[in-house]
């Protein structure tokens, strides 16, 4: 989230799409409700009338996988009616930038941007650039009239996204969608703000990132970024996903979003050079120019001070150029036998990964697997699951217990970037994860010490000062505070920075003090400031709200440097006066900023007398040019989002352009990678979703009788019309199938799903939750402590149905739009 | 001179009535305990409310069964056409010298018999409904409680009169319960037609 949960209450219009926040982020609705009490309008756009829709002022139904179309239609509506925030767009976005005349768009090139290579399924982005003068400064047209300027290109691109086209492709109601446009576009007025709450309903598509890009463009046009009650707000799918992403859950980044080294960057110097963005824009802060400070501090946190930075860099693992090590690829490789072992730590890939049969089969190719969890699950027991022959499976499975988050002290980073310190509520019955990793590293290190091995340095030189050590040098018990302090970072020698003297061993006050010479450490520069001389800022529980804007800056701590709303310098005009005077995030008092922690302390763009302030910097400090990107050349599919159908879709051709599906998505071609499009056998659009009562694959919640009682079963929701067509009655046992697999479910026949008319044809959609799995079903004789479990569930994983295809940028699987069939279960009444 | 005795009830009829009577008393006492919170103390007589209620349930079966037995034992007399009327009954209560031209049963007794039978039937049926309350459905079941209580009050009133008339009100009647006989004079006075025709 650019903003945070409490800030939702400051919105005038809340759009919830690609999310069922009321059900899956129930606490968020505390703030949505507060906003509505103050007169805010709630808009819900979803294939299904959800619990969120039930609270909305306007609900518009759309077919899964068509979000770019209706969002593109909104861009067109805003531009056609000139409802955008003109000053904001001119000052704080690249709308006035002139794009290379070689740049061509899908309207001209059969659905492709210029530079497409069909063999590599990749773009050459040479034409996706800005025109510059001799000094490299980008050419701009402040009037935004030049046909090559970003705003005009945007207008041209989305001129194809007419309302009729939107209705034809999405299957929505024209009136409802127009109401949505009208209401949301009203936040283009400077003193009004709108926010978007989205979740996996937008990300889990082959065009997931572009879905969000389209919305970001809308937010920039309407001047909603940096504003109270605005922003682009991703509702994370798990309470600490933000933390795990910040600390490098993903293969392509190191902690703090530092790009993973690649084999073609052999030295630290080259690595820093390649990863540090450059700009010739005079007023751009280009904060990422500090990259070498953060990378050096990270190396110091990893390996201490007993080697120079270049050596330490050489110890870091490196990706091959172009290597993708994301989830889908990992399991694809596992299936091919590329791995011998696998730690499944606090997860359940046999249910959570798309195309679960592929995942389950991949696990059978391993020599060993360690399943670390609170309960046995479909992953640890995959060898005795449906369709498996235990005798023929070689994988040796070890099951290790672990502690639940409530059983250990530490921090949780929520969607609003608040890093909240928690104490352990109860003693864990098993060792904590930290202690297990401690044990693991100790033994691995010992093996390397005793037996040597290939490339032992990264292991032997690992800095491991996470608690009091015994005489053998082994850490007795992991101290979370030691870890938190290392993440914040230390001064490793006496040093004077910005006129302040620090001693060796002092905690670094904030990332502005980090050094590129190896004199500081920081496990994650974004978290530098979380644990410093003031103490553990994450544990703060101050309840005061001096600004009245719900910032609660004394409650816990949030990154970066406790800034509650990022890009907040875009919330003011050239003179530092808030666009929305009644809900200021920050304001310039003539000498300094008041309110939230500003994005840098530079003065506003203009002085009080109207002259340009040479000391100023543009507000989007993390962007190389200081402004936000309406034209975004960074993504794989193109600088402007274009509609492509899901890999499996109900139409034979894309009604928007000649490319049916994402032209740059990565295709898998193994025996389990089956896809069928527009096939009579699978005529229904399927999607997956969650319910309030279960969490993820349900490993924790299916075992809790009170929750299993509430949602005991896999179900499939379908329209009354479809049920009639299929002869299915409410509560019937049915089978949901794709070309890949089939899953048992109970039919919920509801008026909350309605058939869509897409391209003149009736298209039905159904939805199924993904929380279930065979391990807790009665037919697999589920037992708790040796006696039959009181609340067995029904049905296996919905992800058996979903395809192995991912977003072209992130590789997140497309589990929100695929083609299925539903039939009454044979032999049942 | 010895009284001339006339046989009015067989041993089996007496036994039936005794059982009926005792069961009614038990039912009344255990029932009253749950009739109103002010009578709740009565459940103490039977060792607490649970025992009291259990006794009520099984005694109810006995009472319900004897209701039928007694009715059929006396069915002929109850259904026999008499010459007396309701007015005669009321008059005979108030005027000692008046004797209605009653047969084996006078009009009042027949009225009582019908009510005892019908009331016993209702009490039994509604009682069973209350014992097994989830059979009939909510709406109907709610009326069962009302009917059981309404007929309880009705029966109590009738039994009160019955008891009085059979003891203090009409001396000489009680011996029917003891020996099954009445005096010739009693028979002639109270049931002249029966006395004339059958005795």
């Amino acid at each position: 989230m650019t903003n945070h949960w409490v800030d939702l209450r400051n919105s005038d219009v809340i759009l919830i799409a690609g999310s069922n926040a009321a059900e899956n982020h129930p606490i968020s609705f505390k703030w949505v409700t507060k906003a509505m009490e103050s007169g805010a309008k709630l808009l819900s756009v979803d294939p299904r009338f959800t619990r969120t829709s039930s609270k909305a002022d306007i609900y518009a139904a759309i077919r899964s996988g068509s979000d770019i179309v209706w969002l593109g239609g909104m861009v067109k509506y805003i531009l056609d009616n000139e409802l955008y925030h003109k000053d904001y767009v001119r000052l704080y976005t690249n709308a006035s930038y002139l794009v290379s005349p070689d740049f061509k768009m899908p309207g001209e090139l059969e659905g492709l941007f210029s530079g497409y290579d069909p063999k590599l399924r990749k773009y050459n982005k040479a034409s996706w650039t800005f025109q510059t003068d001799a000094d490299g400064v980008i050419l701009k047209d402040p009037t935004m009239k030049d046909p090559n300027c970003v705003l005009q290109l945007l207008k041209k691109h989305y001129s194809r996204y007419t309302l009729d086209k939107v209705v034809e492709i999405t299957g929505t109601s024209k009136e409802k969608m127009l109401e949505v446009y009208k209401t949301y576009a009203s936040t283009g007025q400077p003193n009004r703000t709108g926010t978007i709450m989205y979740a996996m309903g937008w990300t889990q598509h082959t065009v997931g990132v572009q879905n969000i890009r389209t919305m970001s463009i809308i937010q920039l046009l309407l001047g909603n970024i940096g504003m109270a009650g605005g922003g682009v707000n991703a509702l994370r799918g798990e309470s600490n996903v933000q933390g795990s992403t910040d600390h490098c859950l993903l293969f392509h980044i190191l902690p703090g979003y530092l790009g993973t080294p690649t084999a073609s960057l052999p030295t630290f110097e080259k690595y820093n050079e390649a990863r540090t963005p450059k700009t010739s824009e005079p007023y751009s802060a280009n904060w990422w120019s500090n990259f070498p400070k953060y990378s050096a501090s990270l190396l110091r946190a990893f390996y201490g001070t007993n080697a120079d930075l270049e050596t330490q860099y050489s110890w870091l693992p490196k990706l091959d150029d172009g290597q993708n090590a994301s989830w889908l690829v990992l399991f694809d490789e596992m299936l091919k036998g590329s791995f011998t072992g696998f730690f499944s730590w606090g997860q359940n890939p046999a249910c959570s990964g798309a195309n679960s049969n592929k995942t389950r089969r991949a696990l059978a190719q391993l020599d060993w697997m360690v399943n670390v969890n609170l309960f046995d699950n479909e992953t640890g027991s995959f060898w005795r699951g449906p369709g498996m022959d235990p005798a023929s499976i070689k994988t040796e499975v070890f099951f290790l217990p672990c502690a639940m988050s409530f059983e250990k002290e530490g921090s949780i980073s929520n969607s609003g970037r608040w890093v909240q310190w928690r104490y352990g509520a109860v003693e864990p019955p098993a060792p904590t994860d930290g202690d297990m990793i401690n044990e693991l590293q100790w033994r691995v290190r010992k093996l390397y010490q005793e037996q040597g091995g290939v490339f032992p340095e990264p292991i032997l030189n690992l800095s491991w000062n996470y608690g009091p050590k015994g005489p053998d040098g082994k850490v007795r018990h992991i101290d979370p505070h030691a870890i938190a302090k290392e993440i914040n970072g230390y001064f490793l020698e006496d040093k004077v920075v910005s006129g302040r003297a620090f001693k060796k061993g002092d905690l670094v006050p904030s990332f502005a003090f980090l050094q590129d010479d190896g004199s500081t450490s920081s496990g994650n520069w974004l978290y530098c400031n979380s644990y410093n001389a003031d103490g553990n800022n994450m544990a703060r529980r101050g309840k005061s709200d001096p600004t009245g804007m719900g910032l609660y800056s004394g409650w816990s701590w949030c990154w970066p440097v406790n800034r509650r709303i990022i890009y907040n310098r875009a919330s003011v005009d050239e003179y530092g006066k808030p666009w929305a005077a009644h809900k200021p995030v920050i304001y310039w008092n003539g000498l300094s900023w008041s309110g939230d922690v500003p994005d840098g302390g530079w003065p506003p763009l203009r002085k009080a007398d109207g002259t340009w302030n040479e000391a100023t910097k543009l507000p989007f400090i993390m962007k190389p040019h200081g402004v936000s990107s309406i034209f975004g050349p960074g993504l794989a599919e193109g600088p402007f989002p274009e509609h492509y159908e899901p890999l499996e879709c109900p139409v034979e051709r894309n009604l928007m352009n000649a490319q049916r599906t994402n032209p740059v998505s990565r295709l898998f071609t193994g025996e389990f990678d089956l896809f069928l499009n527009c096939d009579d056998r699978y005529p229904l659009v399927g999607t997956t979703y969650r319910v309030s009562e279960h969490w993820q694959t349900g490993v924790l919640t299916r075992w809790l009788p009170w929750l299993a009682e509430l949602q005991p079963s896999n179900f499939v929701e379908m329209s009354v019309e479809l049920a009639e067509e299929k002869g299915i009655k409410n509560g019937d046992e049915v089978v949901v199938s794709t070309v890949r697999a089939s899953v048992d479910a109970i039919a919920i026949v509801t008026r909350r799903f309605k058939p869509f008319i897409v391209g003149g044809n009736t298209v039905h959609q159904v939805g199924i939750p993904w929380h279930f799995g065979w391990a807790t079903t009665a037919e697999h004789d589920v037992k708790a402590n040796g006696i039959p479990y009181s609340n067995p569930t029904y049905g296996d994983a919905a992800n058996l149905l979903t395809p192995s295809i991912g977003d072209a940028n992130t590789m997140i699987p497309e589990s929100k739009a695929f083609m299925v069939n539903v039939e009454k279960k044979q032999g049942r009444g | 001179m010895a009284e001339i005795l006339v046989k009015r009830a067989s041993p089996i009829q007496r036994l039936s009535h005794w059982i009926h009577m005792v069961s009614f008393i038990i039912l009344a006492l255990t029932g009253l305990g749950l009739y109103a919170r002010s009578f709740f103390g009565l459940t103490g007589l039977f060792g607490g409310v649970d025992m009291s209620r259990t006794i009520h349930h099984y005694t109810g079966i006995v009472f319900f069964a004897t209701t039928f037995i007694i009715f059929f034992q006396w069915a002929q007399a109850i259904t026999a056409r008499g010459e007396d009327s309701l007015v005669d009954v009321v008059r005979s209560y108030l005027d000692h010298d008046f004797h209605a031209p009653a047969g084996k049963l006078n009009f009042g007794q027949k009225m009582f018999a019908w009510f005892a039978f019908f009331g016993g039937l209702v009490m039994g049926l509604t009682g069973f409904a209350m014992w097994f309350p989830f059979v009939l459905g909510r709406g109907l079941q709610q009326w069962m409680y009302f009917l059981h209580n309404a007929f309880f009050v009705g029966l109590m009133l009738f039994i009160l009169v019955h008891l009085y008339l059979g003891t203090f009100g009409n001396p000489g009647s009680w011996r029917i319960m003891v020996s099954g006989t009445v005096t010739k004079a009693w028979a002639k006075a109270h049931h002249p037609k029966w006395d004339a025709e059958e005795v």
Partner: protein
Amino acid sequence: MAGKMILIDTTKCTGCRACQVACKQWNSLSAVATRNLGTHENPPDLAYNTYTKIIFSEVEKNGELAWYFGQHRCMHCEDAGCMKACPVPGAITRDANGAVVINQELCTGCKYCVFGCPFNVPRYDNKNAEGYGVDKAFKCTLCFDRLAMGEQPACTKTCPTGALFFTEKAKLPEIASSAAQRGLKVYDGGSLKTNVVFLLKGEPEEYGLPAKPAIPTPTFLWRTIMKPLGIAAMVAGIFGVIAHYSYVGPKDIEEGDGKGGKH
């Protein structure tokens, strides 16, 4: 009475059912082994181990779909049908907060309350599988034990959106007028004066509530009319008999008549 109430603003309820779980947790109630019955609702009904349940109700009017969430639970009536029906002194009581509570120590399992409730709430159980008591009636207690400690009920405490809200009953007029401005109906059980008050957007029936809640007619006739009347009649009957004996006297054949003669 300085009563409290639970205000249920159904427009804020998202059907998350945290209240159902919180209720079970606080009251140590076991889970029901359920199956999906073609609805998100579960367990299927209130029970000895289920004191409250969210009702999911899809309503389509003039082509506009609405999804209402109601709650089936004890309404803690000031004129409580269960208390009326209960024959055991002290088995169902109302405390100063307005909580109508069944005392399972005293409950005899007669089930009168089960059928006396206008909202079909108390549930009878005669199994002792989990030690809740054999042959007893069960229902929501308004967490009177929490109230005694100065806490609010578990359900209102846990509600994330403030749809369930614990407040002073005295605030009802104020709440009612602001609800009216929002176009909401106040449902407070009419003459029953429930201490659980709903704010409704639709009709009561669309939330599983009776449109005109009242003590069931038979229960009213039985407990309010019949009971005192019956006692009066029985007492009158006794006095009547005594009066007859005193003023009219017994009809002694041997003495009063003489016609029978002395033999």
